[in-house]
């Protein structure tokens, strides 16, 4: 029996009647990278929240060096040498990078903070992750990816011996991710232990020494990364084989142009962006974080105003002053940041889905909510979405199911043009394929889709044509059938 540094024995976590984790035993040894995989809602994040002291187990206990420990707060877990780099960025926007890195752990005596020592420590942690970030600028000026890296540096700065990474690479470019992997390998050499959670299975095969699989809150088995492959991992997570599907869409002649963007410009965001979208077509927009792809999507939807250029929707030039104008014209947008821009956390599942379509159920005596719920239920079955009752709060759903609700919000609107910004971010493999299949089916029925994503493979899988953006410029448009990841990257860098 190997010597485990830290382990959970028979832990369960229940929220009311919902069992998030059921009798899970899992451990980690020094010098090990232990990947935990599972679909959305499998209990990965709940388990990690138990490890870092954010939640307490309903049953079972945690052991550090074979001795039982109880974490009342994240501070207790940190004292035990466990720190987490959470999925959601959780920084103080107005404070400097350095201050954020050492927040809550500033060096100093009783008469104030020793800024010199504090700064030195922050710089040291930051340098291990990314030395290109200026430690003195406020965090809100950083890109999403850089903020994620600062978050990781903060976990490193606690001098933890066990680090938990929850989807660390979701917002990172390949270069940044590679640096992170190098750090993780170094940390492992030095005897550190890492819990690693990711939906990117390649990364996991590359990095981990051991893979644990969770499904519906229970531990279903362990895989050996030296012998397993992606298919086996997906099967273990889903408990079933994933349906095969055709590689690329048949490129038939599509219909009329429904959206035409010409010379769209916003200083500092993008310049001279032109493209057209035909009926029944999926146009992928690929580009790194900061390439301007999201900004173009928001501008075409009327969230921001273009400084130059025109937008034609169904052959009619439109001045969009508000998203409502775009929606009226028949174009809708699914935002990148689900939590911040997508869901209404205090409203129910059915209201979240029906919020954009309220006029449909307007009656003489006010809203006909029963009709709304009936239609919501048909969409829940059609997509399908895993829900309890449609009147439950949306926050009771896993991320993937929340995303499906928001997607259904626009399908219900019966808009003919969808702009989807990172529609599958942070969603597990199966849900991702389900959403992609759904979108291809919708395109076959005549919907036109702009599919924005930073994952090249995903854009290749879904689109008919791919527009590549880099630093605010359109670098080219390629048919998906002949494009590869390499050709797209080459185009971006050209």
């Amino acid at each position, binding site marked *: 029996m190997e010597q485990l540094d830290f382990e959970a024995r028979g832990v369960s976590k229940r929220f009311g009647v919902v069992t998030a984790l059921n009798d899970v035993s899992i451990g980690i040894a020094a010098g090990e990278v232990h990947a935990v995989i599972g679909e959305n809602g499998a209990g990965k994040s709940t388990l990690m929240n138990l490890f870092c002291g954010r939640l307490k187990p309903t049953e079972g206990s945690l052991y550090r060096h074979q001795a039982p420990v109880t974490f009342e707060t994240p501070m207790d877990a940190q004292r035990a040498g466990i720190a987490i780099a959470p999925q959601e960025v959780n920084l103080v926007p107005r404070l400097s990078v350095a201050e954020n890195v050492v927040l809550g752990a500033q060096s100093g005596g009783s008469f104030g903070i020793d800024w010199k020592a504090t700064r030195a420590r922050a710089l040291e942690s930051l340098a291990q992750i990314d030395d290109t970030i200026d430690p003195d600028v406020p965090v809100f000026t950083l890109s999403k990816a850089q903020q994620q890296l600062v978050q990781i540096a903060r976990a490193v700065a606690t001098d933890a011996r066990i680090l938990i990474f929850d989807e660390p690479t979701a917002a990172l470019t390949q270069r940044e991710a590679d640096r992170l992997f190098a750090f993780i390998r170094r940390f492992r050499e030095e005897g550190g232990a890492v819990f690693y959670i990711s939906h990117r299975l390649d990364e996991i095969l590359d990095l981990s020494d051991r893979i644990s699989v969770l499904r519906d809150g229970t531990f279903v088995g362990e895989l050996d990364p030296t012998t397993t492959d992606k298919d086996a991992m997906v099967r273990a997570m889903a408990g079933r084989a994933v349906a095969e599907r055709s590689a690329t869409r048949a490129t038939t002649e599509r219909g009329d142009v429904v959206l035409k963007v010409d010379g769209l410009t916003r200083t500092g965001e993008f310049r001279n962006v032109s493209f057209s979208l035909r009926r029944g077509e999926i146009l992928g927009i690929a580009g790194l974080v900061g390439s301007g792809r999201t900004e173009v999507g928001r501008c075409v939807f009327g969230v921001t105003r273009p400084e130059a250029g025109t937008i034609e929707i169904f052959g009619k030039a439109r001045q969009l002053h508000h998203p409502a104008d775009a929606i009226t014209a028949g174009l809708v947008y699914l935002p990148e940041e689900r939590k911040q821009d997508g869901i209404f956390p205090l409203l129910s599942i059915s209201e979240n889905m029906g919020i954009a379509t309220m006029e449909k159920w307007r009656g003489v005596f006010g809203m006909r909510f029963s009709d709304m719920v009936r239609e919501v239920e048909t969409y829940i079955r059609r997509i399908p979405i895993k829900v309890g*009752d449609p009147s439950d709060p949306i926050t009771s759903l896993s991320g993937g199911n929340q995303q499906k609700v928001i997607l259904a919000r626009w399908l219900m609107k019966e808009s003919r043009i969808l702009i989807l910004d990172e529609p599958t971010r942070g969603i597990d493999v199966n849900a991702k394929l389900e959403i992609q299949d759904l979108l291809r089916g919708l395109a076959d029925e005549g919907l036109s889709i702009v599919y924005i994503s930073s994952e090249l493979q995903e854009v290749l899988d879904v689109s008919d044509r791919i527009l590549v953006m880099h630093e605010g410029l359109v670098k080219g448009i390629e048919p998906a059938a002949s494009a590869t990841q390499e050709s797209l990257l080459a185009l971006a860098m050209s």
Partner: protein
Amino acid sequence: MSEAAVSSVRRKPQGLAGALAKFRQWDASGIFVALIVLCLVLAVAAPAFLSQYNLSVVARQASFVGLVALGQTLVLLIGGIDLSLGAAAGLSAIVGGLMLTSVGIHPYLVVPLTACFGFLLGTINGFFTARLRLNPFIVTLASWEIFAGATLVITKGYPIRPLGDAFQWFGRGEIFGIPVPVVIFLAAGLILSYVLARTRFGRNIYAIGGNRDAANLVGIRVWRIEFIVFGLAGMLASLAGILYAARMNSAQPSVGEGWLMGAITAAIIGGTSLRGGQGTIIGTIFGALLMAVLANGIVLLNVSGYWERVIVGLVVLIAILVDLFRRR
């Protein structure tokens, strides 16, 4: 998990158990129970509490602050706050009084005209907060001073009186034995409850309070709704002001002093969240009634009036503690 289970839609329990569960989930159940218990205790300890005269005094007292609280609830729901409502009530009472005495407008027209004036006052706040995106706390702090100051400039500190017998009906009259201000308060509450629960405008208010950015991105014209909400709050405050003046037969510059905090308190103990997106009209109505019953109980039980504010403070603390434990 099987495919069938994935797409199945669970049903909630029906019948009495369902009704009980529903009551417990109801946002206003706590304040409702508290109000009933307090009334029962007072009915036993001070039998005078249940006399028709006393009850109508309590209800009328509740209706002035209550009207302001209804408006405050709307503003809190969109995630704002309006500190100027008490002063808006005062200024409206004065302007209404001048309409009667100096301009000579028919008494029955004065109330709706004052309400329109109140709506205008509210939309001043709405313009700065909703259109220009300035912080509502700061904007309404400023307009509070301006409205209160304008009242003094107009009146030079003297009340406008008398307002005439016909007009007094709005403050002292009764409809089927119920005081007119109470009828107007309950009618406003009923209409707003309906609007919030059943209309698109109402649901959009909750959506904006819950997530403003997302509301904008689903095509809700956020600033228009916020603008109207501030206008409605001003209108409800002006109604309270003019009805109170009718009750006193005198539009005094001091009308509305002390209503602001009472209104916020009523909304909060009624379950409205200061962060927006959460709260109900019925909760606020119960909150306003609870405050009026408390004040009345202090008088009836011969407790020194100086204790009233201490007790109100304690009630607020208890209310948020109960809420905290219910959430756990």
